[in-house]
């Protein structure tokens, strides 16, 4: 399958005091929803900030939509096409909703006031029917603030959404809504619109994830289409007597008094022959945890 990419990154490096982001190659497919998964401190936010352009001190090359390079990243043409939400100081805390609307109008040519109001209403940003224009950002809960940011980016015509932890502050119902919003956004783009989001809520976001990138300690540990990953990794369940032998073959293993469960690379399946095991398709959550365990500094 011939793939187009909305972002291609090469040799991205960023050094902090005790951390180093080092990504030789990163390709985010166009027309899909891509999840960025990793434990705390893996470098997800740093990577997203670099891609969004709110962090400019890094090494490496970036290419957006096959048209713009990192030299064009500060150009309006590129920035107009990217919508970003993040957990930091996206809006200043004392801004009112009215100010946010006015500032958005000034900052982005493609911001549509009516659409913003519609999204505020659809996402129930405010408790009543009416928009509370005088309400300040600091008076909103984390979840409502995220909904407001989503209303702000969805009120614009963009080709790419970069969302940093959009699901974390949201309730389960709103996470479901977020998934359908992402799906609709991608469908609406006819292969031209893409979403790249970081998440810890892998299970909740799995049904909308087409492509996954798993990061650990500043590096990409695994990347691929979810369907491909589910062929590459398999979920194995077995009896207690095989724990030791299976442990040497499996990618990751969890034991219990009754047996074991683990992830095995498909190409190592033959080595399990003779053991009494069942094979299942793993969830993205199970694959991600297995990959993270393999690369984490956390002692499991």
């Amino acid at each position, binding site marked *: 399958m011939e793939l187009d990419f909305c972002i291609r990154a090469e040799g991205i490096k960023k050094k902090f005091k005790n951390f180093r982001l080092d990504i030789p190659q990163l390709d985010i497919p166009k027309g899909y929803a891509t999840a960025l998964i990793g434990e705390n401190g893996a470098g997800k936010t740093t990577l997203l900030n670099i891609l969004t352009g709110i962090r400019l001190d890094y090494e490496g090359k970036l290419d957006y939509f096959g048209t713009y390079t990192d030299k064009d990243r500060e150009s309006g043409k590129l920035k107009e096409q990217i919508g970003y939400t993040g957990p930091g*100081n996206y809006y200043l805390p004392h801004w009112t909703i009215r100010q946010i609307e006015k500032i*958005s109008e*000034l900052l982005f040519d493609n911001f549509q006031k009516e659409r913003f109001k519609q999204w505020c209403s659809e996402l129930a940003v405010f408790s009543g029917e009416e928009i509370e224009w*005088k309400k300040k950002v600091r008076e909103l809960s984390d979840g409502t603030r995220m909904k407001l940011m989503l209303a702000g980016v969805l009120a614009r015509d963009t080709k790419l959404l970069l969302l940093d932890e959009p699901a974390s502050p949201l309730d389960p119902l709103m996470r479901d809504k977020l998934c359908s919003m992402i799906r609709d956004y991608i469908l609406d783009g006819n292969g031209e619109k893409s979403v790249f989001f970081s998440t810890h809520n892998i299970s909740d976001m799995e049904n909308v994830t087409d492509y996954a990138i798993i990061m650990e300690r500043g590096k990409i540990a695994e990347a691929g289409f979810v369907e491909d990953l589910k062929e590459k990794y398999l979920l194995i369940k077995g009896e207690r007597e095989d724990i030791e032998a299976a442990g040497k073959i499996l990618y990751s293993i969890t034991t219990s008094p009754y047996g074991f469960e683990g992830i095995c690379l498909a190409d190592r399946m033959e080595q399990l022959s003779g053991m009494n095991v069942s094979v299942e398709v793993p969830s993205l959550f199970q694959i991600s945890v297995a990959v993270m365990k393999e690369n984490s500094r956390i002692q499991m």
Partner: protein
Amino acid sequence: MRFAAKSYLAFTSFRYRLLMFLLVPTGAFAGTLAYGELLGSSLQQSGLLLFMFVWSYAETFSDYWLFSGIASAKTHGSEMLRTSERGMAMMRSGLIMDQVRRLVYMAAGTAVLIIAGQNGVPDFPEFLEFVLFYYTWTTGMVWISRFLSSYTGIRILTAYSAGMGVAGGVILTVINMGQEPGIAAIRAGIICVFALLAVLVSVCSVLHVMKRVKGGYYDSKN
């Protein structure tokens, strides 16, 4: 210019506009006139100082509702501004227009008070001295307040700055009362120094805050 004005207005909330564009100027002006009437004495001296005290206090304190410690280590600007090509231009325009508004309001208020206090004959050098001194002083204090993210910090700064501003005004008044032969030259010198300082503080405060806000793009927080 239109973009600059729109940017500034976008940064101001309705409450801020109501307070700083209307209520504070009207209140300070009316209060000072009433004070002069009540005392029936030299309005241009103590009345002007009262006017400037209220003004300086309101300007420094109300910036909490305008840019709210925008250059503080905690805030470091807004990510939303950084996601647009026009974000930094908008920020700069907001900062500049705020200074222009402050200068115009202070100049207009002071002029009217001096005219009223001197029965329609303003002492132009005195007018310049007061406007330049208070504009420079207040702009400097507002500049500092933008590096403070805590409400308490800004309140303490505001109280000190307004008090010290009045002390500066008293010194100016004492100098102006002098009858010595060289006093005109001293006053001309003061005007030149304050004019220079006004330009310097205006330019530096915008550049410094912008540098700090842009610093959010990088590790080094300036």
